[in-house]
């Protein structure tokens, strides 16, 4: 459904961010992209979103090539990026300009309700907490009903408790329309909690190192043996991806790189 074929990205300054990355994602699948800092995760999302063009290779959704931002692809950035001069409701409705006002209002109300922010519509973004703002930015991307939703470390700035709550929120939202979800994360637990597959990347240049299936039913019990096993598998691959960096961290013991992968 979402298909990345031989993606290469070299930035203007010569940084080789991605090298021959190919990935196929099924409709409705949740894929977590995990990897050390600078291995090209954000770059990958930006290519898929059409905000940035690949040096080589193609991105396609249902066979249609993505060369510029496309209605089938929604993106949630690492920061909420709400427009400060629009109210919460107007921010959520930002991509619904083509709809009549009443229909837009209903969609926005429904979206606010779903993320537990009913009644927050008339507030300004500055009046929201970090977690609330991120929830608004997630539904802003979701109300347009994209087929593919991209998320770049959407919860990384939040505390562990809020993060776990928002992960549940996210699953509930995903449940409703089941978009294909490509989620960048630093958090192995997050990957195990949400994803059907964890794709581990390796830096310099960015490549796919491992592709780990997480065949657990939802809702997932974070204390179950299967969950712990999945976390261990992802962490193991992550360690492997970092110990194989030519030169850089090659000589360091495994437990060191486990601590320094982020």
């Amino acid at each position, binding site marked *: 459904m979402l298909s990345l074929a031989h993606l290469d990205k070299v930035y203007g300054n010569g940084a080789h961010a991605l090298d021959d990355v190919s990935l196929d994602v099924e409709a409705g699948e949740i894929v977590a992209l995990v990897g050390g800092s600078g291995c090209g995760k954000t770059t990958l999302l930006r290519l898929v979103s059409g905000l940035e063009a690949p040096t080589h290779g193609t991105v396609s959704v249902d066979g249609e090539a993505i060369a510029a931002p496309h209605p089938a692809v*929604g993106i949630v950035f690492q*920061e909420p990026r709400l427009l400060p*001069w629009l109210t919460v409701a107007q921010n959520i409705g930002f991509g619904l300009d083509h709809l009549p006002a009443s229909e837009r209002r209903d969609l926005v109300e429904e979206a606010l309700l779903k993320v537990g922010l009913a009644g927050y519509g008339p507030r300004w973004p*500055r009046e929201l907490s970090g977690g609330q703002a991120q929830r608004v930015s997630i539904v802003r991307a979701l109300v347009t009903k994209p087929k593919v939703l991209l998320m770049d470390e959407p919860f990384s700035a939040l505390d562990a408790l809020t993060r776990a709550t928002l992960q549940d929120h996210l699953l509930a939202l995903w449940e409703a329309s089941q978009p294909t979800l490509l989620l960048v994360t630093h958090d192995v637990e997050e990957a195990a909690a949400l994803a059907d597959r964890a794709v581990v990347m390796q830096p310099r240049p960015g490549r796919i190192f491992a592709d780990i299936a997480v065949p657990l039913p939802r809702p997932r019990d974070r204390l179950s043996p299967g969950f712990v096993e999945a976390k261990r598998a992802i962490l193991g691959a992550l360690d492997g991806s970092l110990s194989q960096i030519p030169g850089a961290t090659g000589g360091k013991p495994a437990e060191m790189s486990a601590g320094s992968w982020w």
Partner: protein
Amino acid sequence: MSEIQTLDLQTKRNARASTRAASSRLGGGFVYGLILPVAAALLYEAAFRAGLVQARLLPPPSRIAETLWKLAASGELLTHVIATLLRVGLGFGLGAVVGVLLGALTGSSSLARRLLDPTLQALRAIPSLAWVPLFILWLGIFEPSKIALIAVGCFFPVYLGVMGAIANVDRKIVEVGRAFRLSRLMLARRILLPAILPDTIVALRSGLGLGFMFVVAAEIMGASEGLGYLLVDGQQLGKPDQILAAILCFAILGKAADWLILVATRPLLSWQDSFARSG
């Protein structure tokens, strides 16, 4: 249509918020601001009445008020105020419109910036008053040369402010617009315009301030009416009370004009998350 409705809703909401803010500011700020000048005036008046000061060069507030009242009663003051305000209004309007347009152009197109900005910056380095002889030669000694001078004075802060505001718009916010596939026009309207509004208003306010500065210069250099004329006339006839009355008028008009911009634009800025708001 639908967009207009949301906008309408928003302005209503904002208007409510801003009247609240304005009234609290009027209640608190206005009174605080008056304490110092009123106290100083009363003190000086008392000193004068007690015979402690010589009033020939610095007349007491009561004399200035009296002069002001006479000027107002004869209708003369209104003529001067209107003449000055017209000059500032026309000059500022002209300078601000051109400043906003050119600032928007150089801010949004790097080609335009590379072509125009160096020249404009060089022109900015010329003290505006240096243009006066040329303007008089070109435009005569009457209104057009005065308005041209004021317009030039107002132009530069507005131009610089708008250009800088566009250059400083957060790339991340612009990207949100791109991700939602806004056309260039819509991007300008829904993202750039609101984003540069606060800085643009600051630029307009400093432009207007310079407008009042240059209207005095223009009127001192030769005018038969206007507050600047009252200044010169007061000097030539040795009437410090008239000079001070005119200065007082300038202070009031300048402050009122600035306040007007503030109040008129506050509803558009109630979303701002700034230090001043929290204080």
